[in-house]
């Protein structure tokens, strides 16, 4: 296919090229860090003033209670119009947020951000520091672990919406049938695992096919602090004492094939929870709702107990939970911040709890009406007793990586291999560590 030359051909080619170049140049002139935002001193009074003045803000979230919350807010503050948008769940939502940030526009004023993802948005400076509005004063109203989770570096970037202290959910019917006592230490847990496998090979003590959130929470519970960030210095040590404590126990379960390996949140997983294949599972305090909605066959059979620990003393970690933050590119940050305050500190909490959310506020965690609630699904157990107690025993000092979302994407490539081969988890963790260090250095951090 030869090009036969000709002036007209060249002219059109030039025109097409020019059009292409024009569009490319249009695309190139891009992201500066978004304007907007009140300059200079701000304070809590600004928030009240903003509410009175009114305006419009956009709120991206996927929480089911958002509709009720927004409706209640607009009733209370008729001058404010909140545009509620569900831009996707989890990674879809974050991808759109990243794109909007990079483009400098198109993002919301307020966005839901999970605790693990917060540093990734806060550290590059894409979120508004809410300390300037005096919100640091609310420290005592929240549990220490969630309060720590909404900070990154030196700033405060949101108010905790909910918390997810982990507890052990177990199938009482299966435990009773196989003669197993509720384990309180991890050694007991491993022993129970072996018993279950002996008596009923098709069942298993728990299910773990490799999940980054679960792994980090387990390391957290063991007292590990594998990720430390200080400015642009990042330390990654996935073989620190806490991590090794966890792998010491968990390797037994994985290498001796004592766990089921059904991928979580799939149809098979829900069915296995319902029919007794999976005897117990460690999940955050938001799990009762999931059981009620998606595991109908398990009704009445499950109970909640504190997580087993290494020394028998209560200790747990957080697993899941989010906050709402204000984007730097917001045109009305004061109003956005006022909305966040209402949502997670003031009247917004009630609709959230009504829809089954698990609070991060100390007052609600201690409220007898909440604590003593009996749940039919769990055989009438007052599950919140266990869960609120767990909220008080979260191990302190945990930090997520500034690029935790990335870490989660490559978890399957690295630690996942250990799960797949049912081999030593430490190897997988080291491989994860190497990949994370390489990425961090590439992105301008100084790792290790």
């Amino acid at each position: 296919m030869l090009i036969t030359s000709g002036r007209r051909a060249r002219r059109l080619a030039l025109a097409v090229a020019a059009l292409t170049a024009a569009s490319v140049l249009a695309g190139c002139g891009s992201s500066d860090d978004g304007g907007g935002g009140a300059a200079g001193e701000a304070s809590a009074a600004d928030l009240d003033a903003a509410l009175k003045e009114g305006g419009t803000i956009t709120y991206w979230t996927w929480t089911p209670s958002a509709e009720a919350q927004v409706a209640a807010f607009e009733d209370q503050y008729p001058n404010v119009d909140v545009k509620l948008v569900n831009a996707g769940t989890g990674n879809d939502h974050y991808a759109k947020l990243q794109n909007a940030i990079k483009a400098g526009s198109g993002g919301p004023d307020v966005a839901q951000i999970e605790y693990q993802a917060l540093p990734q948005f806060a550290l590059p400076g894409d979120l508004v520091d809410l300390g300037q509005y005096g919100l640091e004063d609310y420290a005592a109203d929240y549990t220490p672990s969630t309060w720590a989770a909404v900070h990154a570096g030196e700033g405060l970037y949101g108010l905790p919406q909910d918390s997810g202290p982990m507890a052990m959910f177990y199938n009482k019917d299966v435990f009773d049938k196989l003669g197993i006592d509720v384990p309180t230490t991890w050694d007991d847990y491993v022993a129970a695992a072996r018993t279950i496998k002996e008596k009923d090979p098709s069942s298993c003590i728990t299910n773990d096919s490799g999940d980054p959130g679960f792994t980090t929470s387990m390391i957290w519970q063991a007292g590990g602090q594998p990720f430390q960030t200080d400015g642009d210095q990042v330390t990654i040590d996935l073989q620190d004492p806490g991590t090794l404590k966890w792998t010491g126990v968990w390797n037994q379960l994985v290498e001796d094939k004592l766990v089921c390996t059904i991928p979580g949140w799939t149809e098979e997983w829900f069915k296995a929870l319902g029919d007794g294949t999976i005897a117990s599972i460690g999940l955050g305090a938001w799990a009762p709702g999931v059981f009620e909605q998606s595991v109908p066959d398990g009704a009445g059979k499950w109970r909640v107990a504190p997580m087993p620990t290494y020394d028998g003393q209560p200790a747990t970690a957080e697993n899941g939970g989010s906050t709402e933050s204000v984007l730097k590119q917001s045109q009305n940050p004061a109003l956005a911040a006022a909305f966040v305050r209402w949502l997670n500190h003031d009247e917004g909490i009630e609709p959230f709890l009504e829809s089954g959310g698990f609070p991060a506020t100390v007052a609600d965690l201690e409220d007898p009406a909440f604590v003593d609630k009996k749940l039919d699904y769990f055989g009438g157990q007052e599950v919140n007793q266990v869960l609120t107690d767990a909220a008080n025993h979260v191990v302190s000092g945990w930090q997520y990586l500034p690029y935790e979302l990335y870490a989660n994407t490559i978890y399957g490539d690295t630690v996942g291999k250990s799960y797949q081969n049912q081999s030593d988890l430490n190897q997988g963790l080291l491989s994860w560590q190497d990949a994370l260090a390489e990425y961090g250095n590439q992105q301008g951090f100084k790792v290790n």
Partner: protein
Amino acid sequence: MSTRRTPVSPLTPRRSPLLTGLMLLFLVYTLVPLVWLILSATKTQADLFSSPGLWFGDHFAFFSNIKETLTYRDGIYLRWLANTLLYVVVGAGGATLLATAAGYGLAKYRFPGRRVVFAVVLGAVAVPGTALAVPTFLMFSNMGLTNTVWAIIIPSLISPFGLYLMWVYAADAVPQELLEAARIDGAGEIRIFFSVALRLLAPGIVTVLLFAVVSTWNNYFLPLIMLSEPKLYPLTVGLTQWSGQATGANAQPVYNLVVTGSLLTIVPLVIVFILLQRFWQSGLSAGSVKQ
């Protein structure tokens, strides 16, 4: 159906049960996942996770699922359906028009550089679109096109397959002599295209349209990236959002609506297929007999 065959015995073979049997096996292969889809649409959310996949659940909820799908969250499904129709009609329709005109141009006008055109089009399509998503997003963002219907429609206006088809079809179905005659009569090129060529190209146009419709109907990735306003979502993105409700804290699974919603999206496609099929069938044979 077999109208083109004359009644001479080797040409009107007996129907073969064996061949039909083999094809039936193939049909079963095709149908099993579809049967799962239909059966799942009859189940409630609870039944989905507690009943065998290839049989009914405890409750028969087909009609209530349909009703709920169409009314969930103020009937956003219908809005998504309307969006999809808009994107398909404008996108696929526009793609067909552009491909027809371009194919005609490539076939009937021997201008220099025309072979390069197709090579460049193929080359561009060969670059994986996922990595182009962010550059496209940034470009469109600067032009103010993101989060608008144009972000979806503009990329779907290019159908390289359609271009190729119409090129080859036009080369054959539109005789040069006819064009020359019209030119001698004094007609302009565009006039010739609309009054002479289009009629002859009709069967090819219908084919390109059918395939463009199906591919724009299932367009997912670019709308996902470009749109952050649920009111503009096509069905594919909307259903994915419903699907995501089942995971994590505060989950409110609605898998039964996802399944029912997906089943409903197939129906219009089937209708389009059946309608266009009849049209293009007759046009084809008629066009081919002439030598």
